[in-house]
């Protein structure tokens, strides 16, 4: 076992902060968020999960795609690709597997999303295993585990007397200080590959298999469920896998005879009424129930059908953040019961 002390960890993190942008859980105005930190003193180590997932550091809420400049008859387009190196500390396994879900769409499927992919390449993830499940966590039901190291670069597990370090990828190895190899207990064997039980195959499955979803498309359950929905966007914005966006060109400060614009993309959510509105004002999804259905079908049917993974990692953020207690676990349980 490779065990390092808290002091060593602090020193290492502070050293990382000098070379790259270190992003870690931090308390901002009473909310725990992944934010840049200059020193390990600012980092919160004991937490269930920050309010927002690490998604916002790879797929930001507002991303500038290019700058458009117009001078007389000439137009110049400048692509703005991110090239900032960042290290995210305190990544929970559910968030890391959320990135795996996003990868299948943004990186593994043509056309490749350069902005996401570039950030992904420049990001190293230091995982921190959960000590216990939070009140609304359900990662285990979706095949996750509290200390699942599969999707991070380095995994830390808090043990008595320090943190156990598991190096998962080459990227992770590069981030480690070389003098750690001199530690008495340093052991760089590859981490044992554990087999993760698929809880869904158990006698009471946690969610419906993909092929069982289509019959529920015409179910009046969705309209009933959505009656209390406020059509806000919290559930999509806190979700580690929701990835819809909208693109618009906006004006930047310009000069006389010289115009500047930027093309930005911003998060969008299928819960909002305007999301599906098309040219001419028609809205094929005018009812809240239809929008609600889309959210669940997207996560458990459309996405797995098109890209492979289920677009839910069981982090439970939407369960806690929803102002009117629309609870994804309750919905899944209902569908399972009706189906059986």
């Amino acid at each position, binding site marked *: 076992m490779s065990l390092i002390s808290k002091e060593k960890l602090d020193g290492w993190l502070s050293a990382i902060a000098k070379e790259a942008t270190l992003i870690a859980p931090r308390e901002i105005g*009473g*909310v725990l968020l992944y934010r840049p930190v200059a020193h390990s003193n600012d980092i919160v180590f004991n937490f269930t999960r920050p*309010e927002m997932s690490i998604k916002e550091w790879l797929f930001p809420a*507002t991303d500038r795609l290019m700058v458009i400049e117009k001078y007389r008859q000439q137009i110049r387009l400048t692509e703005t690709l991110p090239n900032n190196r960042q290290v995210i500390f305190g990544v929970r396994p559910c968030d890391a597997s959320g990135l795996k879900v996003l990868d299948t769409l943004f990186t593994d499927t043509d056309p490749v999303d350069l902005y996401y992919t570039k950030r992904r390449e420049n990001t190293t993830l230091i995982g921190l295993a959960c000590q216990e499940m939070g009140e609304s966590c359900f990662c285990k039901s979706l095949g996750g585990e509290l200390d699942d190291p599969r999707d991070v670069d380095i995994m830390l597990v808090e043990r008595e007397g320090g943190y156990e370090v598991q190096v998962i990828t080459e990227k992770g190895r590069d981030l480690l200080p070389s003098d750690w190899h001199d530690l008495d207990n340093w052991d760089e064997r590859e981490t044992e590959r554990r087999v993760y039980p698929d809880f869904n195959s158990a006698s009471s499955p946690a969610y419906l298999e993909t092929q069982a979803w289509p019959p529920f498309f015409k179910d009046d359950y969705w309209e009933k469920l959505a009656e209390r929905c406020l059509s806000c966007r919290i559930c999509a914005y806190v979700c580690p896998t929701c990835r819809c966006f909208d693109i618009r060109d906006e004006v930047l400060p310009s000069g006389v005879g010289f115009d500047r614009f930027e093309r930005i993309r*911003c998060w969008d959510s299928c819960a909002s009424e305007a999301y599906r509105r098309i040219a001419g004002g028609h809205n094929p999804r005018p*009812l809240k129930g239809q929008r609600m259905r889309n959210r669940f079908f997207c996560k458990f049917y459309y996405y797995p059908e098109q890209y492979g993974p289920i677009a839910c990692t069981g982090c439970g953020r939407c369960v806690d953040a929803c102002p009117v207690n629309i*609870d994804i676990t309750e919905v899944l349980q209902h569908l399972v019961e009706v189906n059986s």
Partner: protein
Amino acid sequence: MNGKFEPKIVGYLCTWCSYTGADTAGISRIKYPGNLRAIRVPCSGRVSPELIMRTFDQGADGVLVLGCHIGECHYDNGNHRTAKRLPILKTLMEFTGLEPERLRLDWVSASEGERFSRIVTEFTQEVSALGPTKWQNHTESTGLRYVGSRSAEMSQPRVATFSSRFDQYVEKTEAIQEKARELLAKDQVNCVIGYEVGPRGRTRPAFIHHVDEVDRLVWNQDCSHNLATYLRQKLHPSQKSSSDEKRQRVAIVVKPCDSRAINVLLSENQFDREQVYVIGMTCEGIFNKEGASRQFASHHLPEKFSVQDRCVHCTERTPVLCDFLIGDPPDSSIIPESPGDDELEGILSLSPAERAAFWTEQFDRCIRCYACRQVCPLCNCPTCLYERDDSLWVGMGTGINEKRAFHLGRAYHLAGRCVGCNECERVCPMNIPISLLNRVLAKEMESLYDFRAGIALGPSPLLTVLRGVEG
């Protein structure tokens, strides 16, 4: 550049009086500072708050709004609206860090070249003395900790001694169920909007359409949601409703604060009084979010518990309107003495620069999820001004200017309408103390017009023309 600060001043001048007044000044060769960028508008009433906010966002050091004298408006009462709007906007912008001297409203008629010049000169001097605006700049943290009602350890714990027991909730729950059963059975309403407890023990809105679902309804100390939010959509289904369809009629369970929202909606003709059957609840306060549900589950209430901030400031313990009242008006002794709004006073005691820094820090967290807007019973524009595809008021990005413009605009649109249910703050996932903006405007409305939204039927004074006493 000789190093002297030359402020950028934008003037919105009414074309009939003030713009002509500027011309008069020019023709009479009266001098005034060249810092003013005059923008001609058809009427000072056309100068929307967004216009002023965005002017500051884009770097103006001062904004001057000039219109016709009261009584001389070419559109009869356009300037009455300006006279009511601007002070409200000014209060809001001052509260969030603008120096009051930077925004000025005045009246100049077409013949008053001299007056025009004097006002512009004075204003330019005042703004010059202040130096460049800090409105856009992200200044360093104030270290001021206001963390909203959610974090008990930061703010003063609000503790009320609570004499009643669990039985009270059982009794009220039964009374609601009985009434709902009666209304649905007699087909007096299509739906009863109330509360239920979900599988995780969290209380949430419930919509009861049939008599056999009535048992789901509950009343407890977590009934925080303002159900009046759902009235508009229930009574005005967005899809084409056929004319032969029966007129929608719903029953709704309301707390005193919620009932005020119904008054505002009725005053704004959102639906008819007969369409709503109001089941009013007397209220002794709603619990703070944390731990409340678990305490309920254990069927035992502690002697002391902490109620939400809004309940401490609340003055109505009985709904202002209802068709059926459940519960006795509570004994006033259990209501804690209102400690005054110390959070509000705290912010008001800061300097403009500190306030700007404080609010920049707060708005910076906003993710524009619009939950505050969606949950508000009174944010009821079919399409929000800040979300229209053709709107250039606010970009769709998450820059500080966009977020601030959204929040200030939202609060401004609720001036004289907000009933203080604080749902906006409860739902905010980023814990932004949004209700402070509403509270400062409510306070202003009370001191200017002696008006509190929703206490009685009738339009907000901001929506009417000036009356004698208000001039």
